[in-house]
C-alpha cells in the first residue's frame, strides 16, 4: 500500500494454524465467483499468525499499533455504506512503536461464537473475515482474509413428514406427502403425490425448490425469489387413484441452510413448490416451506442406516389408511385439531389459509402471470446441462439411496392390489 512511493511500507500476511489440514468450503463472492475458504464452525478457535514483511528491509516502520480483528458482518446491497457487524473481536498484537524487521505475531480467538453461516445472496451477504491492521498516521496498512463458517444442526431423525390434502373444488384434489419437514443439505426428498380427483387434463408435474431471500424490515423489506431447482416428477395425465413417487436429491443443488431472521437483517427460506401444468398451460401449485439444515460431515458417514429414504408409494391405500388412523399427527390443517404436529406445520407456513375444514385451497395462477416466470411449459434442457456440470464434482455421498432398506417390505399389503398379495407359503417345502 504505497500510494506515494516513499517511506517505509509493509505487507501483511495472515497465516492460519492448521491451514493445510483444515477443510475448505466454497463460498460465493460478491461478483458471483466462487472461492475456496478455510472452514470454521461455531465455537471453534481461530488462531494463527500475522506476518509483517517490510518492503525495504533496514529502514524502520513507524506505527501506532498492530491489531487483528475477527469480524462477522452483514452487508445489505442496497445499503452499501452500512455494514452491520454482529461480531467484532480485536486482539492487540503490538503497541505503538517502530518495526525494524519482519515480525510474526501469533494470535488466537478462542472459542469464538459464530452464530451464522456465511451467505451470499442477491441482496445480502454475510461474511466473516480477519483483518490485520498496522495503524499509521496517514494510511493504515490492512489485510483482510475471509473465512467460511458453516453452522451445523442436528435434528432428531424422526419422521415429521409433511402430508396435506389440497385442491381446487371439483377440479383437482391431491394429497401430497414429503417424508420430512426438515432436510439436511445432502438429503433426499422422498414423497408421493396421490391423486384424489382429477378433472383437468394435466400435462406434467414438477417440484421446484424456491429460495426466498428477505432483507430489511418494515417498509424497506425486499424479497427475492429464486428457483434453485426444477425437477419434473410426472409426465402425462394421471387418473384418480394414481400415486406418483417423488425423489429429489438435494446434494446437487446450490443450497444453504434455512436462515431465519439473521440478526434481524435478513432471512433465507426454502419452499418446495409443487406445480401441475394442464394442457392449456394453466399452472396449479402449492408451496410448502421446508427447513434446510447443514449436517455435520462426521455424523454423515453412517447416514442413518435405519432411516428409510423411500417412502412407500406401493399403494395409496395403506397410506390413506395410515393418514386416517394417524390423523392426529398428520399435518392436515384442520384448526379444530391443534396438536404438536399441526402447530409445527403452521409455524412452518404461517400464511396458510385455514378457513375451512376441507382440503386446502391450491392456488391457480393466471397463465399470463407466468409467462415471465417460466419459459415454456417444459423444463429446459439447460437444467440437465447444469446438473451434469455439477455432477462432475466428486460427491462425498457414498451410499446409494436404494441400498438402504426401503420400508416397502415391512408395510402391510394393500387392499388395492390384492394381486400382489402373496399367500403365506404354509408348509410348502418348495418355497
Amino acid at each position, binding site marked *: 500500500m504505497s500510494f506515494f512511493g516513499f517511506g517505509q511500507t509493509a505487507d501483511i500476511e495472515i497465516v492460519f494454524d492448521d491451514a493445510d489440514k483444515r477443510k475448505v468450503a466454497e463460498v460465493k463472492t460478491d461478483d458471483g465467483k466462487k472461492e475456496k475458504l478455510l472452514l470454521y464452525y461455531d465455537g471453534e478457535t481461530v488462531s494463527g499468525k500475522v506476518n509483517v514483511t517490510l518492503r525495504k528491509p533496514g529502514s524502520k516502520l513507524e506505527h501506532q499499533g498492530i491489531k487483528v480483528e475477527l469480524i462477522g458482518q452483514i452487508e445489505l446491497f442496497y445499503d452499501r455504506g452500512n455494514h452491520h457487524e454482529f461480531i467484532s473481536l480485536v486482539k492487540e498484537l503490538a503497541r505503538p512503536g517502530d518495526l525494524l524487521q519482519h515480525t510474526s505475531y501469533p494470535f488466537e480467538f478462542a472459542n469464538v461464537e459464530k452464530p451464522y453461516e456465511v451467505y451470499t445472496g442477491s441482496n445480502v451477504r454475510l461474511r466473516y473475515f480477519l483483518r490485520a491492521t498496522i495503524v499509521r498516521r496517514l494510511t493504515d496498512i490492512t489485510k483482510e482474509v475471509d473465512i467460511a463458517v458453516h453452522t451445523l444442526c442436528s435434528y432428531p431423525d424422526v419422521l415429521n413428514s409433511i402430508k396435506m390434502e389440497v385442491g381446487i373444488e371439483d377440479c383437482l384434489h391431491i394429497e401430497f406427502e414429503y417424508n420430512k419437514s426438515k432436510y439436511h443439505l445432502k438429503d433426499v426428498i422422498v414423497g408421493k403425490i396421490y391423486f384424489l380427483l382429477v378433472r383437468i387434463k394435466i400435462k406434467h408435474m414438477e417440484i421446484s425448490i424456491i429460495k426466498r431471500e428477505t432483507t430489511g424490515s418494515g417498509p424497506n423489506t425486499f424479497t427475492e425469489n429464486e428457483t434453485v431447482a426444477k425437477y419434473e*416428477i410426472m*409426465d*402425462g395425465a394421471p387418473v384418480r387413484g394414481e400415486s406418483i413417487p417423488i425423489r429429489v436429491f438435494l446434494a446437487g443443488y446450490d443450497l444453504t441452510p434455512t436462515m431465519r431472521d439473521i440478526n434481524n437483517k435478513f432471512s433465507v427460506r426454502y419452499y418446495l413448490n409443487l406445480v401441475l401444468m394442464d394442457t392449456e398451460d394453466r399452472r396449479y401449485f402449492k408451496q410448502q416451506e421446508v427447513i434446510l439444515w447443514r449436517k455435520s460431515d462426521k455424523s454423515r458417514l453412517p447416514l442413518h442406516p435405519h432411516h428409510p429414504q*423411500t417412502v412407500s408409494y406401493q399403494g395409496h391405500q395403506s397410506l390413506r389408511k395410515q393418514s386416517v388412523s394417524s390423523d392426529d399427527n398428520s399435518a392436515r390443517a384442520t384448526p379444530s385439531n391443534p396438536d404438536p404436529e399441526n402447530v409445527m406445520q403452521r409455524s412452518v407456513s404461517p400464511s396458510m389459509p385455514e378457513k375451512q375444514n376441507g382440503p386446502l385451497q391450491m392456488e391457480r395462477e393466471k397463465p399470463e402471470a407466468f409467462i415471465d416466470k417460466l419459459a415454456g411449459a417444459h423444463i429446459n434442457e439447460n437444467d440437465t446441462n447444469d446438473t451434469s456440470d455439477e455432477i462432475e464434482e466428486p460427491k462425498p455421498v457414498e451410499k446409494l439411496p*436404494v441400498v438402504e432398506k426401503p420400508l416397502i417390505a415391512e408395510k402391510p399389503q394393500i387392499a388395492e392390489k390384492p394381486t400382489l398379495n402373496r399367500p403365506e407359503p404354509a408348509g410348502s417345502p418348495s418355497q
Partner: protein
Amino acid sequence: MTNQVSPVEEQEKLLEEALNIVKVQAFQMKRCLDKSKLMDALKHASTMLGELRTSLLSPKSYYELYMAITDELRHLELYLLEEFQKGRKVADLYELVQYAGNIVPRLYLLITVGLVYIKTNTNLRRDLLKDLVEMCRGVQHPLRGLFLRNYLLQCTRNVLPDTHEAPNENEGTVRDAVDFVLMNFAEMNKLWVRMQHQGHSRDKERRERERSELRILVGTNLVRLSQLESVTVEDYRRMVLPGILEQVVSCRDAIAQEYLMECIIQVFPDEFHLANLQPFLKSCAELQPGVNIKNIIIALIERLASYSQRNEGNMNLSVVLEDGQEQEVQLFEVFSDQVAAITQSRVDMPQEDMLSLQLALLKLAQRCHPDKLNYVDRVLAHTDKICADIHQSSGQSTLEHHTPVFKELMKIIKLPCDHYKNILVLIKLSNYAPLIRHLSYQGRVMIAVHLINDVLETNTAISTPQDVEAVLGLLDVLVKDQPDQPPSESDVEDFVEEQGLLARLIHHFKSDSADQQYLITSTARKILQGGGARRIQHTFPPLVFHAYRLAFVYKDLKDQDEMWEKKCQKIFQFCHQTITMLVKAELAELPLRLYLQGALAISEIGFANHETIAYEFLSQAFSLYEDEISDSKAQLAAITLIIATFEQINCFGAENAEPMRTQCALAASKLLKKPDQSRAVALCSHLFWKGTRDGRPVWALNDASRALDCLKKAARVAQQCMDGGVQAQLLAELLGRYALLRERGNQSLTPSLIDAIIQKIREELANLDQSEEVEQITKHFHNTLQHLKNRIESPDPESLGYEGLTLS
C-alpha cells in the same frame, strides 16, 4: 391435394428430424465414451433421450424412434458394464443420473444404470428392481409410459431372480421377480387402457388401431412371467394368475381383456391352465360385455383338448373346493359348468357365440372323453335349450338359413357325425335328433344328406328295427312331408337325388339274422309309407328287393328252419302289399317290374303254393299292363318284360300257363304300331317254345306249331310295313329268332322256311338305297348268315342243324 401436408408425410418428417438428433447425440455420446468422459456422455445421452418426450409421433413412429434410441443406449450400457467389471466404479452414478430434470430421459438413464448395477452386484438386485418399477410411475402419459416400461422389461429380462431360495436375501427370489413383472404389467395395462379414453370420440377407430399396435408391449409382461422357470404350478396358482386376472378383470376394458386372456392361454403351459381352470373361467364370466368371450374359451378348450390327446387322456385334474379339499374332476365337467355359468350371466352374449361355445365343448368332450357319450349328449341338450331360447326370442320355430346361429348349429350337428363316422352312435345321443329339428327345412335336408353320405362312405350296416327307426327319425325330412316345406316343387332334380340317396341308405338296413331282417324291412316300410307317392317310388323298390333277397336266404336256410315256407309266403305277402301301395300311388311301370321280379323269385324259390303266388304276381303285372300302361313304347317294353319273365318261369302247369300265354300273344298282336306288333308277336314264340339250356328239362308245354305261327304272323305283320328299311330290319331280326328257336330244337322251323326269309330279306335289301341304316341292317343280316354258315360247317351236336340250307 391442398397445400396441407398429409399426416403420413408429417409423421415421416417429424420422425426424420428426431432420428437425426438421435444420430448426432449418439455420435457425441460415443465419442465422449471413447475419451472416457462419462459425464459428457451422459449429458448427450440425456439430450438424445429427450427426443422421447415428444407427443407428436404416432405409436408406429414413436416405436421406430424408441428402437433407434435404445439401440444407442446399449453402447452406454456396455461401456458402463465394462468399466464396472474392471472395478472402475463411478461413485453414485445411480444418484447422479437422477439429477436429470426431465423425467423421461431420467428414467431411461436410471434403468440403464440400474441394470449395470444389478449385473455387477447381485446384492442390489431386489431393491433396485423394486425401485425401478416404482419410479416409472412418474410417467403417466400412455404412449411414453408404455415404452418406458417396455424398456424396463427388456433390460431386466435376463436379470430377474429365478430361484426359490436366494443365497442372499438381497438377491431376491422368484417371488420378487413375479411381483416386479406383475406390477409393471398392471401399470402398463392401466396406461394402455387409458389410451382408449383420451382424445376425441371420433378418433375412436384410429385409437383402437393404435392400441392394437401397442398390445404386444403389454403382453410381453405375461411372456416374461411365463419364462420364469422356477414358477411351479403352485406358485402360478397363488401368485401369478390371481395377480393377472385381478388386473384383467378390474381394468374393465374389452380390448384389453380379450387380448390378455388369450395371451394367458398362449404363454403359459398346459399344466398351469389345467390346475387353474376354475379361477380362469370364473374371471371369464366377469369380463366386460363387449368381450368376445367365446374366442377365449374356445382357445383354451382347444389347447387343453389337444394336450389331453397328447397325453392320451392321462391328466391329473383336480380342483380345490371351497372347503379347501382337492377333488379330482373331469376336464369336461369343469368347462361345462363354467360355460353354463358364463352363458347364464352374460345375457348380452350373441346367441351364435353361445352355440360356438357349445361347439367347443362338444369338441372337448369328443377328444378328451371319447368313452363318455353322455358328455356329448349333455352338450347337445344344452344346445337344444339354447335353440329353444332363440326360438322364443325370435318367434320362429326354426333357425333361418344362412344366419350365424344357423351356421353354428350346423357345425354342432355335423361334428359328432364327422367324428364318430357311425350313425349308430349318433342315434344313441338322445338329444341329437331334436337338435336337427331346430334347423330350417333346407338345413335339415343338408344334414340328412350329410348323414346318409356318411353311412354310404363307411358302409355302416343298420341292423335292428330300433336302429332303423332311429335313423329314419334323424332323416325325417327326407322320409315325409314337412310342415315348413317350400310349397312349390323347387327343384325336382334335387329331390330325386335326395330320395336316391335315401334309397341307397335303405340297402344298408341289413342284418345277418333273417328274422331280424324281416323285422327291419317291415319297420322301414311302416315308416317310409308315410312319405307319399313321390317318395315311395324311390324308397320302396329297395325294400322289395331286400324282401326278395331275404326269401332266397330262407331258401338257403330251409334245412335249419322248418318254418321257412311259411315265412317265404309271408315275405311275398309283404312284397305284394308293398307293391300294391305303389300301384295305389298311381304308379304302373315300377310295380309291374317289381311284380315280375317277384314272380321270378317265387318260381325260383319254389316253396309250397308258390305256383299260385307266382301266378298272382304275374297276373297283377299283366293287369297293370292292360289297365295302366297306355304309351305304345312303354307297352312294348312292358310286354317284352312280361314275356321274358314268363319264359324264365318254369313253375306253371298248363292250367296257369295257358291263359297267360294266350293273353300275352293277344296283347302282343294288339299293339298299335306294326313294327311293335311284329316284334312282340315274334317274341311270343318264346311263350310256346323253351329250349333246354343249362340242363333244363324239356318243357312239357312246348308247342312247336304255335311258335311257328307266331313267327309267321310276325313276318306277315312285318311285310305290312310301308317302309322298306323297317321291313328289312324286322325280317332280319326275325331270321335271327328263327335260327334261335331252331337251334333250341323246334323242328317245325325248317331250313326251307329260313331260306324263304333269307330270300325275302335279300329282295328287300336290293330295293333299298344305300344309307347308314341300311348298312347296319345289311351288317346284321350278314352276321346272321355267317352264324348259319358256321353252324352248317361245324354243327352243334346237341341242337338241330340246318341240313339242306344252302347259302349262296
